[in-house]
């Protein structure tokens, strides 16, 4: 028996070495971003942003070995299905494409509008290497292919630039949502809450964006910029919202962390700025005459960020008025955003989902035609309470002749 055990242990060594289908690091092409486009003739085009490891390592030492080649290289291929496209690219890259570090999926506007995201997602979702935490954006005004070829300064890897921009602007200004694949998938399969996906645009000269010169100037010729959010229905992009409409939508979704609202004061436009530090939005639904009524309650806390009128904001009586005005302004933004969503006949505010939870029976009746028939006419009440806690390092602005 002992001999058998010894033999088995010896054999195990062969199997347990873990060399089955092993991949050496130099044989992998680390893909940081994938851009998917529809070519128009029923085929897909994919562009892969592959990291050049040597040019990313040693950040800061620009003159390292005189290597001035870009931090990423892109390859593209076309084919009738996602999988074929992904495999075909091997004709062009010397290494095996490796998706575990892919953080960004860029979908071309045409593809998003005509085919929808589900079609793109399926192959990625199935693949165990690819992660559902990958961010998804839609490239507008350009193809996704052009988009992922642009080089960026500040962040060496363009995919990281986009992700960081999304993260920062979501928390700092609140017009864009940082959505990953899991979140989009969660809403695509579910009625009553359509997903929103951020839109990016490549500004400037596409051709110049591909050259290393683009990141050697202080003002790059081609820039990647978040410009709005795509409204999706059944996985397809049907319209876009931007500015106040998208900020208001995020407000309803309770995704606003920090932002700023300009207020009018005594006939003067944009005289004061209310800077938001904390925000909490509660949406509730009640049933009235067999129809849902939605109440949006916003409680927000912040400080005065700017004052262009002679006003002593540290005066507790006056700040009450400013608080009221801020509340009204926020209410206006949200009401407009809700009106916009109703106009687009797409419930990306999650009202349907809320109703589903509150009253499943009523929801079942309305579900089928919710987006078209019920959501656009639903009654929405908004109430916003703003609280000003501080006014920055100053109390009065400089021109303090007739301070109130």
């Amino acid at each position, binding site marked *: 028996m002992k001999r058998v055990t010894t033999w*088995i242990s010896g054999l*195990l060594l062969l*199997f*347990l070495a873990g060399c*089955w*289908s092993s991949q050496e690091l130099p044989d992998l092409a680390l893909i940081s971003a994938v851009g998917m486009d529809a070519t128009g003739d029923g085929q897909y085009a994919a562009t892969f942003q592959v990291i050049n490891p040597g040019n990313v390592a040693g950040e800061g030492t620009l003159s390292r070995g005189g290597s001035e080649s870009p931090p990423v290289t892109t390859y593209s291929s076309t084919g009738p299905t996602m999988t074929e496209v992904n495999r075909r690219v091997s004709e062009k890259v010397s290494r095996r494409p490796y998706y*575990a570090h892919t953080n960004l999926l860029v979908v071309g506007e045409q593809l998003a509008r005509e085919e929808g995201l589900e079609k793109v997602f399926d192959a990625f979702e199935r693949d*165990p290497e690819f*992660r*559902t*935490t990958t961010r998804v954006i839609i490239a507008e005004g350009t193809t996704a292919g052009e988009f992922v070829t642009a080089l960026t300064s500040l962040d060496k890897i363009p995919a990281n630039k986009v992700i960081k921009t999304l993260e920062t602007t979501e928390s700092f200004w609140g017009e864009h949502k940082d959505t990953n694949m*899991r979140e989009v*998938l*969660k*809403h695509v*399969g*579910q009625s009553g809450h359509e997903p929103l996906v951020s839109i990016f645009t490549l500004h400037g000269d596409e051709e110049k964006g591909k050259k290393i010169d683009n990141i050697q100037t202080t003002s790059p010729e081609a820039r990647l910029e978040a410009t709005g959010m795509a409204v999706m229905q059944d996985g397809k992009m049907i319209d876009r919202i931007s500015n106040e409409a998208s900020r208001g939508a995020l407000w309803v979704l309770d995704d606003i962390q920090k932002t700023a609202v300009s207020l009018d004061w005594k006939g003067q436009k944009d005289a004061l700025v209310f800077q938001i530090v904390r925000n909490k939005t509660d949406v509730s639904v009640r049933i009235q005459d067999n129809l849902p009524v939605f109440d949006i309650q916003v409680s927000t806390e912040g400080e005065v960020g700017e004052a262009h009128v002679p006003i002593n904001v540290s005066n507790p009586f006056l700040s009450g008025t400013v608080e009221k005005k801020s509340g009204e302004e926020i209410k206006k933004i949200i009401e407009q955003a809700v009106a916009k969503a109703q106009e687009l006949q797409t419930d990306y505010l999650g009202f349907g989902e809320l109703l*589903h*939870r*509150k*009253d*499943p029976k009523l929801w079942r009746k309305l579900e089928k035609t919710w987006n078209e028939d019920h959501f656009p006419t639903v009654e929405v009440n908004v109430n916003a309470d703003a609280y000003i806690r501080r006014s920055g390092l100053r109390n009065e602005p400089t021109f303090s002749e007739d301070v109130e």
Partner: protein
Amino acid sequence: MEKANIYAGQLFVLMFIFELGSALLIPLGIEAKQDVWLAIFFGMLGGLLLFFVHLRLHLYYPDKTPPEFVKELLGKFFGTVVACIYTVYFLYIAARVLRDFGEMLVTFAYNETPLFIVNALFLLTVVYGVYKGIEVIARTGELLFVILYALAIAGFVLVVVSGLIDFSYLQPVLEDGFKPVLQTVFTETWYVPFGEIIVFTMIYPYVKNKKAMKKAGIIAILLSGVNLIVTMSINIAVLGVELTARTQFPLLNTIHSIQIAEFLERLDVFFMIALIIGGFIKISLFFYAGVISVSVICNVKNKSKLVYPIGIVVLFISLTQASSYAEHMYEGITIVPLYMHLPLQVIVPVFLLIVAFIKNRHKKEQSL
């Protein structure tokens, strides 16, 4: 039956890991949608009920394994038939669970490795454990229990901290009334994992302190039930019902979603280790029960001789019982619960209990 002794604490650990085993892996009871926690809860209560039935039956013959006492209950012929059916059942379920884990590993981590290799390596450790005997498995269980719980707590904290949980996905409660919940209970959660404790009837004779044993069983079932409820609820709270139902391995997806501070991500290893632990204990116990049954039925004194050949049988069943994962799942969801779990976990034990009750009452009357 071998000469061994395990104490109630070890039984508790084994039962606990056994219950979590493959139940953590699959979208357990997802047919009940957001009410899955209710389905698991009722399954747990049903499991407790079965536990009492098994226990009562066992207490009539506290020193004998089921294949020994069914002969006394049903006579030599029918007793042997029933014992043989159970043997096949245990070995088949061992093979099924082995296949579950092999498929999981191949789907998710070892895409290019043949299923045979993965299953063979997994089974080799199981065979070794069973060869060493129940005491060794029990002690291994104690060690693994600590690791499993440490992982579970760490994973839980990470999911909570990453802010992924949205409990509103668990609403509305009882959207379609009790019907889908009860349907899930009676077709799934009652049997897997709770009804599967039938395998422990082979282990009970090794525990001397019957009172502590009862307590250990109850606590193990309750605790594992609560853990499963928490896990499935978190899966739904993170992924939503649709996505949970669509994935093969919801817990894996939940753990994939963790992203904290740019570096705490891709924690698949958590999932893998937890599952391998659960799988090891679960397969070991079914396999052990099968081996012991065979040795009792065939009067083999040294059960170690049987371990390797039966291991090979289990390995081949695990590979040949279904040609694809889809077929494997279809069998597991539509055929096995109705034609194997329900009769063998519920009907036969209850029937045996009734027979035992009548027989023993009769005996008492005679002795009086």
